[in-house]
Structures are given as structure tokens and as C-alpha cells.
């Protein structure tokens, strides 16, 4: 950090922290990664994402420097983000190529040094671990984002318009919330078939009702503020009031909750893949790795096959949770 700060012109990080540059960086990182993972675009699209990710980490680090919790969380999350965007450019073996089965970590076979060993088919664990994070991150974040858009929209409507809108939306939300999450997932994915987009649908059904409730509660509180009355007495359309007057003010708690929920979604997606309901083989994926390793990892000697993907998932989720804690800490300080 010290090095990059001394190189940069003074104030660059402050300038990048402004909403517009920060969002540009975020999009520069996110859009290529999504296109690459979802639609299998050429790896060239990831080129702008690598510097964007590094810059974004720097900006985030600078803005959260007062909370050590947030810094640890950020570092964990951005480690995996950087791995995700740079995977094609790292000197890795093809993750799907069987080379030497059951090679233990830190050992050499066929002139290749395997840091984390190989799995029962002989595929490089390190390479699979790094490639595997792409799908978890992209689908996890996308699913959470979609769930938030829908949950927030319905929450705003239920909270602001209240009356029948509230009755109907809250009733539907209660019905959905009464299903155990896993049952809901299994039902939806069995019906729609396992795929990334269907995971998004399943996560939305499972998360949106809870998000809707949070937003509805916040809206009920904020809509009695004088500035909302001011907008009403100007004759503003309810949609304008919801989006322009209310939404920016429910943002804070939502962002904290979103970080936590990213963690849940990651768990859910990994679990679904583990159950064979999510993303399908052969492409590397942490849940898949755990599933495949489950049989062989019975032997203590081969437990690394299970530990590597399991620890990867844990660090990512830990990262999200610490970030949420840090954000909450920061919001309480002001």
C-alpha cells in the first residue's frame, strides 16, 4: 500500500472515491467478469478488469482504513475477486486436464510441481480452486443483486403505498418465508432444471421476501418525514417519491444487509452444487469440488481434496461477513 500511495499523485484516491469514479471502477471490474463467466466471452474482455480491481481495492482500503474488521474482510473478498478476474492470465495448468491422479500437495509429478496436489482424476487442485471462484462469485453476486432489486421494489411499494398493496405483498412474502429455504431451492431447481439462471431465480424467491420486509420497515419509518410530505404536497408521483425521496435514504442499512446476504447466497449456491442441483460438471466449482472429493476424502491422506474448496468458501464468506461488520461499525461511528 505504502508504495502505491507514494507513486500516485496526491489526492488521486480521494478523487477516485467520489461516487462516479468508484461506480465506474466497479462496473469496469464487474461487467467483463460477468460477460466472461456467463456467456463464455474471450479472455480479452477481462483485461480492463484486472487494473480496475486493484484500483478499487485501493479505494476501498482508503475509505475503510479506520475499521480493521472491514480491512480484513475487504482483503479476503478482493483476493478472490482478483483471482476471478485474472485466472486466465495466471500461469496455471488447465483445470480440466487429468494429469496425475492422487498427487499429494507440495510434490512433483511429471515435471509439474503441484502446490495443492491433484484430485482423484488427476486435475490440478490449485488451478481448480482459482478457476472455481469465478462461478461462485459471479452467480452469487448476481443472484443477490437481483433479489435485492426485486425485494427493494416490493418493499418500497408495500411500505409507501400500504393498504391493499401491503396486504397482498406481505401475505405473499409470508407464504414464501414459511418454506424452509432448502426445500424451496430444491423444488424450484427440480422444476426449472439446474442452471446458473435458475439459481438466480431460486435465490430471488428465497431472499426477496426477507429483503422486502427490511425495506418495508425502513420505508414505514421514513415516509413520515417532512421531506416526504413536502414531495406529496408538491403533487409528486408516488413512483418519484419512492425512487428519489425514499430509496437513497434506505440505502445504508440495505448495503450492510447485502454484505451479509452475499455470504448466505454463497453458501446456498455451494450447497446446491454439492447436491448436484446447481452448476454442472466438468467446469471447476467449489461446491462441485467438495461433492467430488466427498467420496475419496474419507481417507485422511486425501482430506486436502475436501479442505481446499471448503476453506476457499469459508474465507470468501468470512470476507463478506467481516465487511458487513466493518460497514456497520463505520455507520455507527458517524
Amino acid at each position: 500500500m505504502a508504495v502505491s500511495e507514494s507513486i500516485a499523485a496526491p489526492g488521486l484516491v480521494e478523487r477516485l472515491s467520489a461516487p462516479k469514479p468508484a461506480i465506474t471502477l466497479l462496473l469496469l471490474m464487474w461487467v467483463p467478469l460477468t460477460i466472461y463467466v456467463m456467456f463464455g466471452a474471450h479472455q480479452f474482455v477481462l483485461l480492463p478488469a484486472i487494473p480496475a480491481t486493484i484500483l478499487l481495492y485501493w479505494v476501498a482500503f482508503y475509505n475503510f482504513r479506520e475499521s480493521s474488521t472491514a480491512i480484513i474482510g475487504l482483503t479476503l473478498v478482493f483476493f478472490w475477486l482478483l483471482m476471478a478476474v485474472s485466472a486466465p492470465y495466471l500461469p496455471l495448468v488447465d483445470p480440466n486436464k487429468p494429469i496425475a491422479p492422487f498427487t499429494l500437495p507440495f510434490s512433483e509429478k511429471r515435471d509439474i510441481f503441484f502446490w495443492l496436489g491433484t484430485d482423484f482424476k488427476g486435475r490440478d487442485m490449485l488451478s481448480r480452486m482459482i478457476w472455481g471462484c469465478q462461478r461462485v462469485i459471479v452467480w452469487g453476486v448476481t443472484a443477490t443483486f437481483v433479489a435485492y432489486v426485486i425485494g427493494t421494489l416490493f418493499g418500497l411499494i408495500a411500505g409507501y403505498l400500504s393498504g391493499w398493496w401491503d396486504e397482498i405483498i406481505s401475505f405473499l412474502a409470508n407464504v414464501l418465508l414459511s418454506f424452509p429455504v432448502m426445500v424451496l431451492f430444491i423444488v424450484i431447481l427440480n422444476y426449472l432444471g439446474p442452471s446458473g439462471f435458475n439459481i438466480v431465480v431460486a435465490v430471488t424467491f428465497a431472499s426477496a421476501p426477507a429483503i422486502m420486509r427490511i425495506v418495508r420497515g425502513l420505508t414505514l419509518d421514513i415516509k413520515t418525514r417532512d421531506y416526504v410530505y413536502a414531495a406529496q404536497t408538491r403533487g409528486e408521483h408516488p413512483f418519484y417519491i419512492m425512487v428519489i425521496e425514499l430509496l437513497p435514504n434506505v440505502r445504508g442499512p440495505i448495503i450492510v444487509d447485502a454484505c451479509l446476504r452475499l455470504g448466505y447466497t454463497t453458501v446456498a449456491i455451494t450447497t446446491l452444487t454439492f447436491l448436484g442441483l446447481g452448476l454442472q460438471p466438468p467446469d471447476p466449482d467449489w461446491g462441485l469440488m467438495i461433492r467430488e472429493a466427498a467420496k475419496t476424502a474419507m481417507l485422511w491422506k486425501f482430506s486436502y481434496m475436501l479442505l481446499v474448496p471448503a476453506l476457499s468458501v469459508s474465507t470468501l464468506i468470512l470476507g463478506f461477513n467481516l465487511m458487513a461488520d466493518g460497514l456497520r461499525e463505520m455507520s455507527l461511528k458517524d
Partner: protein
Amino acid sequence: MSDQTPVLECRNLSISYYTRAGEIPAVVDFNLKLMPGESHGIVGESGCGKSTVALAIMQYMGKNGAIVGGELLFEGRDMRSMSPDELRKLRGSKIAMVYQEPMASLNPAMRIGDQLCEVPIYHDGVSEREAWQRSAEMLAKVRLPDPERIMNSFPHQISGGQQQRVVIAMALLSSPKLLLLDEPTTALDVTVEAGIVELIRDIADEFGTSMIYISHNLGLILETCDRLTVMYSGEAVEVGDIHDVFDEMRHPYTRGLFGSIPLPGADKNEHPLVAIPGQLPLPHERPKGCNFGPRCTFFRQGVCDTGRLRMHSVPGDDDHRVRCERFQEIDWERDLPKGEAKPPVESGDVVLSVDDMTKHYVIEESGFLIFGGEEKTVKANEHLNFSAREAETVAIVGESGCGKSTFAKVLMGLEDATAGQVKLGNVELGNLPVEKRDEKTISRLQMVFQNPFDTLNPSHTVGGQIARVIRKFGVAKTKEEVDEIVFRLLDIVKLPRDFAKRRPRQLSGGQKQRVGIARAFAGNPDVVIADEPVSALDVSVQAAVTDLLMDIQRENRTTLLFISHDLSVVRYLADRVVVMYLGQIMEQGTTEEIFSPPYHPYTEALLAAVPIADTSIEKRHIVLKGELPSPSNPPKGCPFSTRCQYMMPGKCDVEAPPIRAFGREGHEILCHLDPTELQEMEPVIKKKEEAA
């Protein structure tokens, strides 16, 4: 008196808070000597450190605050050297405190009796039965009716005034030597406040308790205290006997304060208020020398800005001390601040007329499933009749629950009227919700809100919020034109133009309220409803915002509906007054007619309840008994009959009262009393000389 040990003595007390930005001195060099049985007032605006002093006396500063210098003696013993255990014994038994929010001081999950009993059980170690006994007696002493019932209630089951009496009873239970009152009546209605003030005054006589009374209201201090400290920006600027300070103030800030509160005699045309220019410096941005220097008209370079100022005794009066270097050079009689007299504004045609407007809410008490949903009607507004002319200020006065906010909502189109008509020009508004009103009608009617911290959306810039109104009402279309109008409006409300880019959190309360006013006037409205626009602001800021409102009104010939509970402000700025109680108009007429006999008995009580910060004024004391009845179950007959001191049983509580008309200009009183009886009422407020 002098050979007694003072109950409390602060010597050169300095208190600081430690924050991320470093040490912030909250209070510097504070001196106070409190004799047994004496009550001492501390007056100042928000942020001047008065609450910090109270917390320091309780030794309850929190993690980041600390006393950094000076001595704090309680009955001659140094409190700073006491152990936490000793302090705990002292707090609540020898020193007790009453806070501003009564609801927040009581535990909502415990019965009042149990909460009260804790005090004698813990501090005096008495049995539960005796504690109960003592608590009930104390409740009777603070004049709560039916103590046993109150002991068995939960805090939310009794009214705000009763809650505050319970808190005071709790503070008195251990017979403390020192009672700290931090704005104990600020959250209460005026007539309730009057009762609490009377109680506080009697406590000093009855229990011999010394009191420190913290308030921003000079009138309240005059009614309750013997001595007074005026604080400004962390320093005591003037200390003395209450009459000395009120009659012969010797600090420019004290005088500024008095100049900015509307006393009887102030008039918006002939004697406008004089606001103190500028604003309170932040604790870490205090100027060198006199903290008040940058806002003081007597500021002189080389005298006022060199190093720390000390307190000086006023010659001929050792007890009266003042922190000003130049107080002897100022001619206090001649240099009185005087506002510029302005010509009165002629009112024009009727703009807004309210004709028999009634608003009822129907509340369905939910029964079991589909059975037994009982319907209840809340009569928020009953048969309102009044009108407002062009360029006229009509004040709607009443306490909380009187229906004034409901009326504003009907007017703005957020609620429908149940019956009757509200006409703006020739447009009928009563049953025209805001969605159905055309842009023209909406823009003719705008509102200034009460709470400065709520009036602006924290997520958008100030300029953006004003610009939205301009675009919405089609005043201007292009970006340049809109920006130009935004800047012009900021100029009018006397804010710098670069505020347009700021967000509300970077503004002070008064500045936010100015933006709120700019926003209300952005669409060139004909009628502006101001719902308590200054009640949440500091005294010196109030004057500036009030005058601003009046100036813009004068300029644009806007009709102003001024909703308020503060009769002194109303007397100052209103042309006509409408007094409301429980949804009905009790009295209406010109300001002069309202403030002199004949009065409606409710108006009379309201007038008597308002504390006036003027020693030359004598006031009759009328304390209303009982509580405000619920609007869902109003008394039969006259709504005021349950609390009226002239109540005639068999008449007032049975029959609806008739409207009695006086004078020519439509002075109307809704009362059963005979017109001659009403005529013969004595004025509530008199000059002392006249009374003698």
C-alpha cells in the same frame, strides 16, 4: 447565608470531550456557588455547554468526557476525588436529576409504583411496604390525582405531564440536597408546562432543595430561579441575581438574547426583533479572545481578541459578574438595539376561506375475526369557519391534539374533508386530493415544516431540492434559468450561493429552515402554511427566521397561515388569531382582540401559561386542571368544559356553546358565559406600574 456551606460549588471547572479530532473543550472556566434552598438557572442556546455542566455535576460524563481542571465541591467535599462507590451513593440520593423527555426517563416495562419504590429501597434500605407508602405520599405531593391508580399503571398509560410529575417525584423521594432539571418542560404543552413550573417553584419552598434549572427559555428561568448564569459557547458570560441580570444586563450576548425574543410590546411593524448576526462557533473553531466577538456589535480589535477573558464584577454589585472587556464603556441605555420600523401591510381580498369544514376519522376497533369491529369516530376538526386575506398572517394556535395539523393536511390535499368547504380563490379544495389538483392550484399552496432536521432530504443537495420545485411548477425550464432562480432564492433567505451544492447535513438547524422557506416560496405561492417553523430553533436563530418569513411575505404579498403553540411569537407576527381546542375554534379575532379581554376561558389560560421574560410584567396565574380529553371521546357540550374554571354544571357539559360576537371585525368567542361576564374579565398580562 454566607457562613453556610454551599451545597455545590464549581471553581474554574473545565470539561473536555475527547474525540477522533482531538480534545474539544466543552466548558471552560465555569464558576457556580449554590446555597441551600437556592435555585440557579443556566440559560443558553444549544451547544453552549449547559447540559455538559449538569452531567459533570453528576460525574456522569461517559467514556470520552472528563473534567480537566478546577474543583467541584459538593457540601464542601471534592467530588473529583470520590470513589465510584461513593459517587453511586450520592447520585439519586443527594443529587437527583430530571431530564427533558419524561417517557425516556421511565422504564416502559415496569409499573410506576415499582420504579418509584426502588429509590427508597436502594438508598434508605426500607421495607417494600414502607417504600410503597412513601412513594404514594410523594405522588400526592407532586399533585397527581389518585396516586394508587398511577402506581399501578405503566408509563405509557399516563400523559406526558403526569409522567414528568412522576419523574420529579422519583427525584424527590430520597430528599436530595440538589435537584438538577435539564429542560424539564420543553417536551410538554404550555398549559401543562405551567403546572410543572408551579410545582417546581413550590418544591424549593416545601423541601428546601437547591435546584439547578437548565433551560433555553428566559421566561421560565425568571419564573423559577433566584440566580442566573448565561452561557455562550462553553463559557459563562454573565452571572448574577435574576433581577439584576434581567433589568441591568451587562453582556452584549445577554442583551442580544433579549432583543431576539418577542416580548409584549414587540411588533412586527413598529418594533421588529433584532436577531444576533452570525452563528455559534464550533467548539474547535472558537475565536481568540471573546467567543462572542465575531457576532458582537461592540467588538473592538485589540481589546476583545487578545487572550482569554476573565469575569469582571459589575461596580456596585459584587454578585453580578460579566465576561466582557468593554462593558463599562458601553452605554447600556442608549445603545439599545432597535429594529427598523417598517410600514404595515394592507391586506387585500379574501384568498382562502374555510366554511364549516369538518374532518372526522373513522377508526375500526378490530374485533375477533369478522365479528364485533366497533367503529369509533375521532373528531379532528369540527365546523371550522374562518378566512384569510391576501398578505395577511393568520395564526392558528392550540396545543397538541387540537387538530391544527389535520387542518393543514386537508388544506394540502393529503386528507379529504368530511363536510364543509375550503376555498382557495374559487377552487374548492376540501374534496380535491393533491393528485387531482392541477399544477397551478398546487403551486399556489405551499408549506414550511416544523422540524428542520426532517424538512430536507439528506440524500440530495440543497440546490437540487429547490430546483425540483421550480421545475415541477414550471416556473422555469432551462438549466440556466433554474439555477438563476435557485441562487436568487438563496440570496433572499440570506444564505451563501455555494450552499446550493451542499448536502443538508452540512447545514445548521436555522440554515436548513431557511432552505425549507426558500423551497416553499420557489413556486411563487399565494398561501404558505408554516407549521411551527421556528419552534425547534434556538432563540437567536428564531428571530432571524421569523423576520425572514415576514420579509418575504411582505415582498410577495403572500398569505401566511402560521400554526403555532407559542403565543409570544403569535402576538408578535400575526394579524389575526384563531384559537383551537379539541378540533373546534374557541375564539378568533384580530391579534389585539385575542390578547385583551374579553377572553375565551381557554385563551385566558393559554395566555397565563406562557412564561414572559420581562420583570416589569405582572401576570395572573391560571393553572388548568385535568388532562386534555381524547378526541375520540370528547366531552359533551363545550369541549373545554372539563378543564374550565368557569364551568357551569348542567349547562356547559350538556349543551354545545353558542358563538358570541364582539366588536365589528369578527371577534368571535364560543362560550356559554354571558357576554357581559366575558367583557368584565381582567387582562392576564399587565405592566407592573399599572397594577400598583
